[in-house]
């Protein structure tokens, strides 16, 4: 059996940044395991520009952003295995002198078959996947021609295949909007984008530059009520929905088309985490983590879209950098002492926070807490309370579910509250 200090599951933006950071914090024995045939993850199919504005101060395409991190991994000589799938992660009872618990990672590929690796620490960086038709309960036949937007993106941008010629898109998340433009540029006719919610989950910039630029209509509060065609999609019917999100009879419109793309949300991919016994937050579908991004299992950390779905890859890289540093500290110094932990409660419009727990004694000098809101809020504030004391209130002209928000916690300030029992983050009307 092979031994590594750190095994990173996933070679996308999160895994790459975590590996670079762990190496830069003194860990030499690192293995990245990637199931695709190259590093870079989903960025490789995201050929549009706009990545890296925060990290590199320029607008890169997805593959360019990925290549910057792949180069850093190569320069440092960090080991990686491609075409390799992790099947299981298990924490053993054995612990080393400094208290790190050994994990066994079971993986397989065509060359080595099934094999086991022992690691002192594991970073989960598996990313997320798209919500499928089966999860959406769309009535109608099950013909060919129904794709998730991300599948269509891979086919067009990486494999060189066009999924269809006349397209209806359900869901106005950024991937759906980006694909509306991409299919149009490749000669398809995108007839309509239907969105169940009364607002789009995508960025304004994408609505303008992917839909308005090409005269593609966006129908808010609409959903697909029928798919026609037995062998191939022949038509799709959409209808307006009421406040209860149920279709309103009499509002149906039929679009002839050969393709339906679904852009209806992303789900962190946590089968491995669950089988490892890691606690999952039902709101994010990602692991519950503390200030060091450590899950409920000692020495297993999580970052990127497997932890919670991000809006910008720059934030994934930042989070993964922290996870790499924290895993390095765990490997070097052993498990943290049983420090007092305080829970962060998301209320009044705040859906969740990452992290969910902080340890005032162990945390860095400042800690970025990220979250999303549950609806569009205009002229409201993000308020943070330590028990019942208001600590900060920051005005935000607009907040939307499609964009992550953040609060920065200060260790010094926390030190003034030695008996702190809870932290609350809420949305308040501005006064």
């Amino acid at each position: 059996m092979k031994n590594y200090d750190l095994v990173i599951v996933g070679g996308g933006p999160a895994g790459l940044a975590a590996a670079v950071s762990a190496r830069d914090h003194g860990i030499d024995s690192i293995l990245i395991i990637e199931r695709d045939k190259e590093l870079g993850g989903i960025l490789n199919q995201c050929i549009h520009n706009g990545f890296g504005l925060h990290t590199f101060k320029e607008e890169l395409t997805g593959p360019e952003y990925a290549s910057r991190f792949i180069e850093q991994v190569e320069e440092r000589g960090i080991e990686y295995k491609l075409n390799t799938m992790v099947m299981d992660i298990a924490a053993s009872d054995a612990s080393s002198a400094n208290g790190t618990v050994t994990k066994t990672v079971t993986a397989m590929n065509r060359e080595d078959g099934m094999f086991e690796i022992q690691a002192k620490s594991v970073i989960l960086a598996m990313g997320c996947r798209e919500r499928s038709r089966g999860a959406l309960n769309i009535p109608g036949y099950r013909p060919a021609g129904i794709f998730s937007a991300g599948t269509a993106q891979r086919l067009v941008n990486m494999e060189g295949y066009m999924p269809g010629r006349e397209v209806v898109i359900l869901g106005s998340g950024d991937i759906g909007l980006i694909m509306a433009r991409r299919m149009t540029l490749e000669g398809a006719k995108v007839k309509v984008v239907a969105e169940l919610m009364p607002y789009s989950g995508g960025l304004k910039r994408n609505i303008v530059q992917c839909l308005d630029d090409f005269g593609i209509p966006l129908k808010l509060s609409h959903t697909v009520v029928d798919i026609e065609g037995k062998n191939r999609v022949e038509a799709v019917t959409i209808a307006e929905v009421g406040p209860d999100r149920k279709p309103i009879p009499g509002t149906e419109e039929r679009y002839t088309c050969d393709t339906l793309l679904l852009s209806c949300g992303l789900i962190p991919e946590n089968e491995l985490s669950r089988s490892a016994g890691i606690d999952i937050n039902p709101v994010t579908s990602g692991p519950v983590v503390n200030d060091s991004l450590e899950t409920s299992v000692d020495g297993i950390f999580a970052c990127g879209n497997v932890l919670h779905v991000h809006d910008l890859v720059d934030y994934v890289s930042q989070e993964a950098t922290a996870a790499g540093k924290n895993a390095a500290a765990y490997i070097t110094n052993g498990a943290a002492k049983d420090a007092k932990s305080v829970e962060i409660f998301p209320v009044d419009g705040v859906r969740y926070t990452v992290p969910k727990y902080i340890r005032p004694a162990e945390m860095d000098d400042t800690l970025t807490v990220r979250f999303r809101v549950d609806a569009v809020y205009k002229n409201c504030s993000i308020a943070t309370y330590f028990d019942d004391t208001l600590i900060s209130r920051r005005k935000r002209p607009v907040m939307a579910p499609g964009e992550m928000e953040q609060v920065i916690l200060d260790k010094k300030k926390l030190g003034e509250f030695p008996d702190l029992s809870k932290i609350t983050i809420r949305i308040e009307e501005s006064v």
Partner: protein
Amino acid sequence: MSTRELTCIGCPLGCALTVTMEGDTVTAVTGNTCPRGDAYARKEVTNPTRIVTSTVRVKGGVFPMANVKTAADIPKDKIFACVEALKDITVNAPVKIGDVILPNVAGTGVDIVAARNVAAN
């Protein structure tokens, strides 16, 4: 006098902008909440530009496609001419990020450059 309606892309607020024009001259921008909206509206009605990204086929590479982009933004009305010019292009591997794939695309003075590395097979 004419008016145009735009959605500002400066931030999630997405202000509904109304631009009033006298011929080719902007006489007023309303609906914006901040100066960015004003600047965006003036550029968008007088000289709208976009970065265009697409793909070209690759021969003899480890991947069949390489993505490409305009090295700078080009006039919005040249987008389709730009992708049309790329339609039949096949390049030979290896491809390196920054390689010029097509100079002066659609007469814009802007080059199409590779945005992905593809090693030779």
